[in-house]
């Protein structure tokens, strides 16, 4: 499993995600600067990490989505290559048109940083097969703009196609307004593209790979990718 983590100016979670990948694959992923035009030969997985690329200027992820490396990421995804965007990486994938929808300012206007329960909505993909359908997991969220919105037809299509990966919920797996931290439509925390080779999610699975700090519930995601 050859992974490449893209580094944009203002990314700040690239080391955490590289550490998570190293832990499960025992290979150090390549860190690829955004101004590059090519991914390393034989890249199987591209990860866009969290952070504040370009200081969130214009719109979160908007400028990063137009940087040179994104052409190569687009080609990789078009070939069916696995592509994972976490937090700011999710925002970048939406801005690049590789995922549907857009991430707006949290409905409560506050930056939220806390542990958050999620329900696994589709456990039949390369990313999520390490979980059981409907399993409730606890990840970390840390974002000011994670409010997932899309046009009504798009939301319907995402729901009908099983493209919702994770939904915000409470400890019992209930999805309602009280368990929705940011106002996302239908509590959507993560979505796949139509071919299920691209996943974007606001929560941070790379934060929960070590029992000493926060738990290990993010590990199955990386293990599934490595397998």
């Amino acid at each position, binding site marked *: 499993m050859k992974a490449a983590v893209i580094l944009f100016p203002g990314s700040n979670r690239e080391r955490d995600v590289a550490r998570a990948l190293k832990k499960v694959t025992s290979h150090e992923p390549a860190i690829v600067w955004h101004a590059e035009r090519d991914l390393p030969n034989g890249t199987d997985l591209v990860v866009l990490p969290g952070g504040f690329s370009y200081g969130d200027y214009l719109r979160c992820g908007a400028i990063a989505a137009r940087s040179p490396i994104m052409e190569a990421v687009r080609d990789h995804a078009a070939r069916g290559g696995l592509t994972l965007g976490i937090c700011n990486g999710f925002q970048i994938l939406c801005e690049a048109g590789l995922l549907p929808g857009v991430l707006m300012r949290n409905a409560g*206007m506050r930056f939220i940083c806390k542990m958050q329960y999620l329900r696994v909505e589709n456990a039949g993909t390369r990313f999520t097969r390490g979980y059981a359908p409907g399993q409730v997991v606890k990840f970390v969220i840390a974002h000011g703009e994670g409010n997932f919105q899309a046009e009504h037809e798009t939301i319907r299509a995402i729901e009908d196609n099983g493209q919702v990966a994770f939904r915000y919920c409470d400890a019992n797996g209930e999805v309602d307004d009280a368990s929705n931290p940011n106002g996302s439509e239908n509590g959507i925390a993560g979505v796949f593209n139509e071919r299920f080779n691209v996943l974007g999610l606001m929560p941070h699975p790379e934060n929960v790979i070590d029992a000493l700090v926060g738990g290990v519930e993010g590990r199955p995601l990386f293990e599934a990718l490595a397998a």
Partner: protein
Amino acid sequence: MKARVTVMLKSGVLDPQGKAIEGALRSLAINDVRAVRQGKLFDIELDGEDHEAARRTLSEACERLLANTIVENYAIEIG
């Protein structure tokens, strides 16, 4: 040639920033403010004097970068 591009959230899209500003105006006792929507304004200088060409250039700029047309509208003023 100078142009001004305004990008606004589409009506119906929740604008928490506008709402916060609205609340702050009320707390300053600036009354009679019914609603606030916040947007972005770009002053752009262009080469050439052809207004139609400029409009095409700016439309492309809006479609490809300045606006996210899922949730935002844009307006172009030239001159």
